[in-house]
């Protein structure tokens, strides 16, 4: 089970990243749990200063960018 965390306070880009991550996970057919981390204090614990961010099993894979679905697949596979 992959733990996918979308880091962002809820702006359109953050929501878009959550949608794209969900799409990527479904297309890969992996087992996953996706959570949206929206509290700024919790986001800061990941060491990021740019959002949106995506963490996979606790490791931040991207911050400050909206990657393509194909790139997200590589990050979460």
């Amino acid at each position: 089970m992959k733990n996918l965390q979308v880091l962002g306070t809820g702006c359109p880009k953050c929501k878009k990243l959550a949608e794209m991550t969900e799409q990527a996970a479904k297309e890969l057919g992996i087992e996953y749990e996706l959570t949206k981390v929206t509290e700024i204090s919790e986001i800061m614990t990941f060491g990021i200063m740019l959002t949106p961010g995506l963490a996979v099993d606790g490791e931040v894979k991207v911050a400050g960018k909206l990657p393509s679905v194909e790139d997200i697949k590589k990050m979460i596979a």
Partner: protein
Amino acid sequence: MTKDNCCCSGGTTTILACSGGSNVGQITNEVAKRLDVAGVGKFFCLAGVGGQISGMLASVEGSDRVLVIDGCPVACAKKILAAADLDGYNYVVVTDLGIEKAHDFTLSEQDIERVMSACKASLANPPAKEVQQ
């Protein structure tokens, strides 16, 4: 990043300073702080990059521009970025501006202003080829 600013609007300039244990190292730290306060960019934690903290690495990679300030030719900041496979940044070395390195922490306002100007001038141009690799 603050509660009212999610930092996803783009145009981010990240500033990394060597912040070393010398006058020139501490000038980089002071300059980075002042550039942040002036809104030129966001002062970010070089130690986190050196420590391979994934969120910090991803944040630097996700920045539109990165300014790296080293105090002296030992170039610790530059080497930390190289170890993290990060390139394509603007680069300023304090001693290249004629400021002599010493183990003296009484910083000259004139020196700080000189480095501030050099950093702003650097950011007016694309990243130098020698650090794009």
